[in-house]
């Protein structure tokens, strides 16, 4: 009898969680639709979006640039170590550039963006909810989705590809410093092989598409978690954590799906 009770209780809990999860996904979809519906303000009064681009994009630049430099430097070291075994150390430029523009640039910059800007967006909107600022806005006949959420959403979507491009550029510089200046790989071969092997459509455009999709995913998760946070200190803290965890998983899962589609049949 006790086993049956435990089983029933377990099933009930599982069912409750599944229903709650489905309900939340539905709510998030409706929220996304509302953000798109009320995006007019974000473009009509573009200064609101520019202000958010400063907070989410410009203030994330330092961490993106420094990380990009270090990742590029590590790629330079590891790449040289592997390539010189096969006598093709001149291909270091290609390895660094392709790794960055195809994968590491969009993925790592999106992960950093989720931790730096995504968590800040969630905390800010969550605290605005907790301190009744969103309710006050509603009572002043101003739609908080149009005034608060949409500018932050579009700022994130616009910032992400630019940050990923900066990350990749810094990574290439890092790879150059280590490979050419420190180890002594031929400079001409480094740049010329990179130039001839990196394809604009296949590599760069695909990388930009990836970072654009990551930007939509991360920023949507961030604004949704903030807007849906329980209006308590614990609620905002939980929402911020969920933003980082869910965004990171979403980036990695989307990366796999996009890569599978983009590089299907290549090579």
């Amino acid at each position, binding site marked *: 009898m006790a086993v049956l009770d435990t089983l029933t209780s377990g099933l009930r809990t599982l069912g409750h969680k599944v229903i709650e999860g489905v309900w939340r996904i539905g709510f998030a979809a409706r929220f996304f639709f509302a953000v798109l519906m009320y995006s007019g303000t974000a473009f009509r009064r573009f200064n609101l979006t520019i202000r958010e681009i400063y907070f989410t994009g410009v203030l994330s630049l330092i961490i993106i640039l420094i990380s990009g430099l270090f990742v590029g430097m590590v790629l330079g070291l590891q790449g040289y170590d592997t390539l010189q075994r096969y006598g093709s150390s001149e291909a270091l430029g290609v390895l660094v550039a392709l790794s960055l523009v195809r994968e590491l640039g969009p993925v790592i910059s999106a992960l950093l963006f989720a931790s730096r800007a995504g968590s800040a967006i969630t905390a800010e909107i969550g*605290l*605005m909810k907790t*301190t*009744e*600022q969103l*309710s*006050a806005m*509603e*009572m*002043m*006949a*101003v*739609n908080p989705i149009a*005034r608060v959420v949409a500018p932050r959403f579009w700022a994130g979507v616009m910032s992400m590809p630019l940050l990923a491009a900066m990350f990749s550029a810094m990574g290439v510089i890092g790879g150059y410093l280590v490979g050419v200046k420190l180890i002594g790989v031929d400079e001409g071969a480094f740049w010329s092989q990179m130039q001839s092997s990196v394809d604009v459509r296949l590599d760069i455009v695909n990388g930009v598409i990836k970072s654009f999709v990551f930007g939509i995913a991360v920023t949507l998760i961030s604004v949704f978690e903030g807007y849906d946070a329980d209006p308590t200190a614990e609620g905002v803290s939980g929402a911020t954590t969920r933003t980082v965890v869910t965004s990171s998983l979403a980036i990695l899962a989307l990366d796999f799906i996009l890569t599978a589609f983009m590089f299907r049949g290549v090579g």
Partner: protein
Amino acid sequence: MTSANLVEIDNVNFAYDSQRTILRGINMTIPQGKVVAIMGGSGCGKTTLLRLIGGQIKPTSGAVRVAGQTVHELKEDGLYALRRKMGMLFQFGALFTDMSVFDNVAFQMREHTDLPEEMIRDLVLMKLHAVGLRGAHRLMPSELSGGMARRVALARAIALDPMLIMYDEPFAGLDPISLGVIGQLIRTLNDALGATSILVTHDIMESLKIVDYVYFVSEGVIVAEGTADEIRASKMPFVHQFVNGEPDGPVPFQYPAPDYATDLQGNGRA
């Protein structure tokens, strides 16, 4: 609607779900130009009433009419148009923390009007002057005391000269001087603007000085009503307990619990 009543609450019931009924059969009228208080203990449904009037939630049954319009039947555009004629002071001000005092008060003017910035400046300074904080217009909300924040929120609430001003616990957490200042401002601004005010509070002494009429709410129903003088003279046990701040009475001191002796002999089980 009676032309003299700005707000009419007609047999309103409200519940978040089947187990949590908040309001039951509420009937209330708020006449034009008056300051009306809704009083009651914490959690009795006072703030819910304000949210129903502002259209933030919909009644389970019954109707709330403001200026002749049934609030819950309005579409988004209609509701927002009605809200432009309302001002609301939230319990802790709810000032926008990323904006200065000036920008907080100017917020609605910039959102809803095409007034030039010079005129907005004059209007904002006039509103701030009315609450005695013209000199604080450059400060950020984090630099204000609780009483000052409440006054800025009041200036913001009257920014567009609303016909109805709602106050959610305007006296909570204020020192005696700020308490008196806010009380007087509520009365003065209401009369100067020709507005109507609804005051949700449990601060009986301060509110009885300024209100025209009082409704007492307990456990989701109206248990008493009358003018300030009638309330002071009331012999109703609930009103008497509330006015005199007695710890026990119709509102019991003890939260419902099993028999005391049985509980103490419960072998350490919590």
